[in-house]
């Protein structure tokens, strides 16, 4: 195995990234587990400035939604952009430096969190590095646009469309996060927009980019309809950024923006249906009969679909007031993130032979891990939904009965309803950590010890597309 520290082209760069990717996922799962442990047992576990729920929650957001996300984004762009546009990346050295800079700045943010914890904001970014991050994402977007303009393929493939959308909204989300807080409603404006542009659009668009690549190229199937893919793209691009406001229903946000959010969230049914039809019709023509590979893609798709359904359910008029300001939003936030992590695993499995020239064998370990990952993620999302509905009902029922649990007097009742699901989530978090460890193990085993097979050349990366 040869990994170049300074890569010459996208294949060399993909080699480095694919090697590091499982380790970053593992880091994210470890911090997430630690955070869940300190949420359920904070009064029993020994705590200090770092080991307490408040800090770990910020750190977990930083690692999952910023560091891991930017890492996946850069990896996906490096491999899929040239693949989709039919040409090798232009101005590659600059592209490499910008991508590396973006990942590096997110990593420095993680380190800075320990040195100067007060700099770390609620959703992860530190105020010190935010401006540099904006400049880097802007430069990265500029380079992607140049590659788009220099494309060789007659049409623009769906994978690259989604990648461009993700980077554009990543930049928008960072601009939003720098806004000033002048009145109370700004807290909800800024955070709901950051959530929906950075996590909802960002994670789901990178997911869809990899998804379309895997169901065509990975599954060796013919895309059923590009029109349906285009409907999904424009539908999600227009609707998703507006869907975050409804989780702050009844707050100081203006009524009209909450209502628009509700109606546009209901409209998510259109791109979702287009996606479902395209997926089911496309995989009907698949030639890759590897069951584990299909199962992993199916799980990722189910989680993504489920998250969209949760978005739609939470827009029903009787449900919205109950789920606002509760864990229900966490189901959606983590739903998009988990679907991205789930699709990443078959993506890495698919790329190992192509990038490293090592055969990837789907054994019992991979089969077991696929089901472990899928079930632990679906169960975690379901429990978060349950907690959201339970606590929401409890807050409302208590307030109506004259015993406002929101103030704390009756909080024991609420806690009795949600403490058990939280304990289960901690257990599932441990299972998720275990499965990410197994994923790392499978990948490293194949890279280091897999039997030699034919790898992809740079020209193949940039020229061969089945979408």
């Amino acid at each position, binding site marked *: 195995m040869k990994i170049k520290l300074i890569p010459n082209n996208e294949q060399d760069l993909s080699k480095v990234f694919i090697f590091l990717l499982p380790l970053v996922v593992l880091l994210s799962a470890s911090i997430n587990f630690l955070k869940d442990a300190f949420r359920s047992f904070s009064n029993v576990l020994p705590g200090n400035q770092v080991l307490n729920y408040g800090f770990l929650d910020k750190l977990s957001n930083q690692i999952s939604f910023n560091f891991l996300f930017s890492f996946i984004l850069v990896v996906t762009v490096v491999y899929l952009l040239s693949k989709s546009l039919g040409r090798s990346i232009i101005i590659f050295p600059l592209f490499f430096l910008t991508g590396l800079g973006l990942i590096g700045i997110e990593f420095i943010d993680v380190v800075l969190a320990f040195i100067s914890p007060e700099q770390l904001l609620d959703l992860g970014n530190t105020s010190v590095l935010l401006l540099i991050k904006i400049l880097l994402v802007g430069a990265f977007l500029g380079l992607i646009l140049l590659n788009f303009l220099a494309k060789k393929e007659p049409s623009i493939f769906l994978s690259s469309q989604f990648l461009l959308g993700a980077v554009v909204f990543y930049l928008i989300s960072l601009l939003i996060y720098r806004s000033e807080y002048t009145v109370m409603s700004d807290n909800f404006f800024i955070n709901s927009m950051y959530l929906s542009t950075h996590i909802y659009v960002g994670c789901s668009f990178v997911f869809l980019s990899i998804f379309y690549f895997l169901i065509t190229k990975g599954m060796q199937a013919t895309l059923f309809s590009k029109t349906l893919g285009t409907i999904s793209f424009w539908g999600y691009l227009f609707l998703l950024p507006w869907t975050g406001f409804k989780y702050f229903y009844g707050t100081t946000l203006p009524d009209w923006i909450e209502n628009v959010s509700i109606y546009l969230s209901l409209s998510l049914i259109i791109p979702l249906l287009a996606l479902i039809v395209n997926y089911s019709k496309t995989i009907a023509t698949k030639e890759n009969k590897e069951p584990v590979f299909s199962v992993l893609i199916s799980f990722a798709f189910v989680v993504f679909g489920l998250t969209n359904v949760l978005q739609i359910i939470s827009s029903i008029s009787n449900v919205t007031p109950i789920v*606002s300001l509760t864990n229900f939003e966490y189901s959606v936030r983590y739903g998009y993130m988990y679907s991205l992590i789930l699709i990443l695993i078959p993506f890495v499995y698919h790329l190992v032979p192509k990038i490293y020239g090592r055969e990837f064998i789907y054994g019992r370990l991979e089969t077991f891990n696929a089901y472990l990952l899928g079930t632990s993620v679906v169960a975690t999302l379901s429990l978060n939904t349950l907690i959201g509905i339970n606590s929401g009902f409890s807050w409302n029922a208590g307030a109506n009965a004259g015993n406002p649990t929101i103030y704390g007097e009756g909080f024991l009742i609420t806690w009795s309803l949600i403490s058990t699901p939280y304990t289960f989530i901690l257990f599932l978090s441990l299972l998720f950590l275990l499965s990410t460890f197994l994923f790392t193990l499978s990948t490293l085993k194949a890279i280091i010890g897999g039997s030699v097979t034919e790898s992809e050349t740079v020209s193949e990366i940039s020229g061969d597309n089945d979408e």
Partner: protein
Amino acid sequence: MSELLAKVAEILGAPETLVQRSAEARAEASGNTVEEVLQSWAGGEAIAASAPAAETSVVEEAPVEEVVVEEAPVEEVKEEVVVEEAPVETMEKVIEEESVELKKESSLIFIAGVLGVAMFTYFFAFAIPKNQSADLVAESLNNEIAVSQEVLKGAQVYNDLNCQSCHTQNVRLLIPDSQNGKILKNKFADEVIIKNTGLLRLGPDLSTSATREPTNNEKWLTRYLTDSASVRDTIPHPNYDFLSTSDLDYLLTYLLSLGEVNE
């Protein structure tokens, strides 16, 4: 092949040479053989969609043109010459359009579309309504609150400890908190105080914490914050025994002010 070509030419009412050229162009675009294309035009099975999906719609467009061609003989004999030529032009045009559509899918238009949606979202979902809220507050009569430096320092400690990740200060359905009530009185509130409103209600809401038992009691609060299990072991709450004495004092001052500034 030639029989098939003649048959198709007869059906379409077009010269054989033109049909041959059209079929070749279609075959190249769809990835099928010329014979398969001719068969589909002659009324056989539709061409299988082995080509990229973008081209599927192109194949489906053909019968529409055929209908136009079939309608031609209904016209009067004098105009027949013109009518016969019309479908020929149309067909050439259609084929040209098909190839244009494949070759010139513009990156520029696509990029402009994405950037347009992004800018629309930024302005209409964020910048404009955010400024409107700020203007509303600026125009209000009572938009100031007086907060001491100790309270502000306490608010900063509260924010650094990320208490807002579990506790809100945003009671719904109460008049002072709904819509403009609370924002009107906090126009010049500190950024940290605004952030402390919180986004997720896991633990109890603290907006009226200083007006209720036992959270209005300084001794109880101190004990709860430094050793929560000794007060209430059924509900997990982090212990902040690592805080410096001054930070703990600031935090207590802030917590004991809640309910007063927001009323």
